[in-house]
């Protein structure tokens, strides 16, 4: 008899993908400016480490939070006992205000419709449990965050069917791509329950256009589907074109109080905007009472520590501070983004135009030996071993086109980013040298076609092995 469950035995958690392999390699040989200057630079983790100093100075000015002495009187024991799955009311209030601020107050949120979870990881899984049965499916645009294979499918038994997006139109979701995905699901005999999008996108770093959102909404209305919008990067929008939340798009179409309104659900977290992934603060926002009621009960399996709720309700409650924090944070993200884009641009590598996120979606198709995923993996391994950079290959994000890579820029010091760009330059130069040698070689081969075979072979041996 199999002693463990199927879930324990299977690979659905996707942890053997290159995304995780790269992380492991990094752990074996991590870069450190002093102790290991030739180690691997981690560019595969979408973390925001740019603005801790701002948070630290807030804490230094507000040390009464530490002693639980805010609101006049010790609240330690109340917090220690507080395990109500409805969450700390003060915390939910500041969270909905914060979420509204990010959306330029174009929409307002109610604390009663917010469910707290242990990170967005838990929020996404919980929504799948609530919205779909085992064997049912969600459509998801590619490329997408590799962790979704685990978060959405593993314990829930839900299937993911990709909506294929292509570089030909900047990876935007089209009506025909939606239709195709839906039909594909039907071919596989899968009942589609909804669509899950990440907006701003991971790994693209781009916010979705109004047009895309409208396609989605129309499609979801037509097919009676749910829309889950993971807006975890909504606070990292640094570019000029602003972020449109799915809720905003729906509101603009006067869809409040219609059927579809109760099928739109937002996922959010403080892990990216505030750079606090360790604190495990995620949330689900939905107008659908059945969903929030079930999700609230399910959150019992992953509540947010009351200690953390208390700290953050004070931090986020300082509206003046949060305003200046978000402004400065965006400024720093923008600068880093520009640094990477221009640095890569100088070596002939282009990035998808993006205005958000903690990474760039980099086009290295021209560096592939062939237009295949094998060549992409080859290139990825080379970059890892020769340039000592851990970046994420597009195939790990289920991209349908080989040659794209996600490169993170916000999880390191400025000098480290500079160094990684230098290493990339060195690497690209070496490839170009190789390529030009090969070009010369093939030119010579063409020239010498007229000579006898054995003379041709001698010439090859003279040059030695190229790859």
């Amino acid at each position, binding site marked *: 008899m199999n002693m*463990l469950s199927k879930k324990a035995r299977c690979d659905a958690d996707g*942890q053997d993908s290159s995304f995780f392999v790269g992380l492991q390699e990094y752990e074996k040989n991590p870069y450190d400016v002093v102790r290991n200057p030739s180690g691997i630079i981690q560019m595969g983790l979408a973390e925001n480490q740019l603005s801790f100093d701002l948070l630290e100075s807030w804490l230094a000015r507000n040390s009464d939070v530490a002693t639980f002495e805010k609101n006049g009187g010790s609240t330690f024991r109340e917090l220690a006992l507080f395990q109500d799955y409805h969450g700390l009311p003060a915390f939910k209030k500041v969270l909905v205000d914060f979420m509204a601020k990010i959306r330029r107050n174009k929409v307002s949120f109610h604390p009663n419709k917010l469910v707290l979870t242990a990170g967005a990881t838990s929020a996404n899984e919980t929504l799948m449990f609530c919205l779909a049965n085992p064997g049912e499916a969600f459509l998801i645009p590619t490329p997408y965050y590799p962790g979704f294979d685990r978060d959405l499918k593993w314990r829930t038994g839900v299937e993911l069917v990709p909506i294929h997006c292509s570089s030909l139109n900047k990876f935007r979701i089209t009506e025909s791509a939606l239709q195709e995905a839906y039909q594909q699901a039907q071919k596989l005999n899968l009942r589609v329950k909804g669509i899950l999008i990440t907006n701003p996108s991971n790994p693209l770093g781009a916010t979705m256009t109004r047009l895309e959102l409208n396609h989605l909404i129309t499609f979801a209305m037509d097919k009676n589907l749910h829309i889950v919008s993971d807006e975890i990067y909504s606070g990292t929008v640094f570019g000029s074109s602003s972020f449109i939340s799915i809720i905003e798009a729906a509101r603009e179409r006067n869809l409040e109080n219609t059927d579809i309104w109760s099928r739109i659900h937002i996922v959010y977290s403080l892990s990216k905007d505030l750079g606090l992934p360790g604190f495990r603060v995620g949330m689900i926002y939905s107008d659908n009472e059945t969903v929030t009621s079930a999700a609230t009960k399910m959150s019992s399996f992953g509540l*947010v520590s009351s200690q953390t709720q208390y700290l953050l309700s004070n931090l986020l409650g300082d509206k003046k501070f949060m305003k200046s924090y978000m402004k400065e944070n965006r400024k720093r993200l923008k600068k880093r983004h520009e640094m990477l884009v221009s640095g890569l641009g100088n070596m002939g590598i282009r990035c998808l135009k993006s205005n958000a996120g903690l990474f760039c979606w980099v086009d290295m198709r021209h560096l592939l030996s062939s237009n295949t995923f094998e060549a992409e993996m080859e290139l990825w391994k080379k970059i890892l071993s020769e340039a000592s950079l851990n970046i994420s290959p597009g195939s790990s994000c289920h991209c349908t086109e080989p040659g794209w890579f996600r490169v993170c820029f916000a999880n390191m010091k400025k000098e480290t980013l500079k160094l990684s760009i230098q290493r990339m330059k060195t690497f690209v130069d070496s490839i170009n040298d190789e390529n030009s040698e090969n070009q010369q070689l093939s030119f010579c081969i063409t020239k010498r076609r007229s000579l006898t075979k054995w003379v041709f072979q001698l010439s090859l041996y003279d040059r030695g092995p190229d790859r």
Partner: protein
Amino acid sequence: MATNELHGENSPYFHGWKAYDNDPFHPIQNPNGVIQMGLAENMLSFDLIEDWIKKNPRASICTSEGLNKFRDIAIFQDYHGLSEFRNAVAKFMGRVRGDRVKFDPARIVMGGGATGANELITFCLADPGDAFLVPSPYYPAFGRDLRWRTGVQLFPVMCNSKNDFQITVEALEEAYEKAKQSNIKVKGLIIVNPSNPLGTVLDREALKTLVSFINEKNIHLVCDEIYAATVFSAAPNFISVAEIIQEMDCNRDLIHIVYSMSKDMGLPGFRVGIVYSYNDAVVNCGRKMSSFGLVSSQTQHLLASMLDDEEFVEMFLRESAKRLSDRHKFFTMGLEQVGISCLKSNAGLFVWMDLRSMLIEQTVEAELELWKIIINQVKLNVSPGSSFQCVEPGWFRVCFANMDDATVEIALKRIQMLAGQGKEKEVAVKNKPWRKNLRLSFPARIYDESSVMSPRLMSPHSPIPHSPLVRART
């Protein structure tokens, strides 16, 4: 799944919660309110922890002393957990077991409280449709934690008062056979030791019997030892399954422990659940699954410091046990004075009270009738045995560690009056003025009027949406 009833919250037992939430006791503002005796929480030793936190500012990432750790902690989301956290937890678990066993930090896996930990281990060990055996009476939320999203079934191993609710081999075999006959695969046995709701500990023989049973049937054994440090008298001693497997041959791949900081340390709000497995594959899989319920790194950091402080841990365990013992003695003696007996116990935050003699007839209906009287007229929210799937009507779990001395005294008086009235339906509850108790061996706590000591807490099971704690500032 969102619409089925497996979350268990629509059961009739919520009547008790509702009654409390609508009319909560407060010594001054609402002295006739319902006293909450249905929440197994440990509120007796907060002062010790508060004291430690004040003396150890470095353990917090918010203080000037601890601020330098802020960014490293804030960014840390590795599902292995902070190594200092795992080391401290392993050390603490060993200490709680008198250092008779050593725990390996590498086998510690985090869960979102014991709630999350129990669900996680079930996901790892069983497929939808499989079953776990669980001795009854058992913690009601197991119905949700072990079954809801996992699709696993529970088969009770029935225990009764004839032998003080001990688990017998016959009962185990009966439950196992029942599952087999329905063509259901039994994947394991889950026990809670010390027991909730009984408050008893399993002796060496009983544990060995259980281990032999699961070994022979080749099924898993999950031991929820969440109440391990609430054992308040040395006899009988608490023996962990970790000790037993050192003394006998068994397949260690079948042995798993669930633990938490919620009862021993009284920190349920911090959501610290632990799965400790002797099975490498379970540790690996469980660790990945823990992504869905990691412990906040801020909390890991605080506890790593606290639990590593050997002097503090020693003092805390000793003092906490003493306070629990005193409270238990006071309460049970008070009950004995009016002829109410409880199952003999030496652990947990509650007593298993025998009110069979007060039942009009030995049925669940009569038990629920009596329970309604206790809630509505005696104004105590206690938990009826049927909510624990107890096969014998008339038993009630009564929590005693979630209130101060004065409230316990009032609760006791109310129960004494109930007993004094015998089988009469009408019980008049007189308005007793609150006063400090001079008989107790430790000082009564002063009521802080700005914060309620018998907090108006919402059970996670309560359907009522508002939490009165920590009001929004805007």
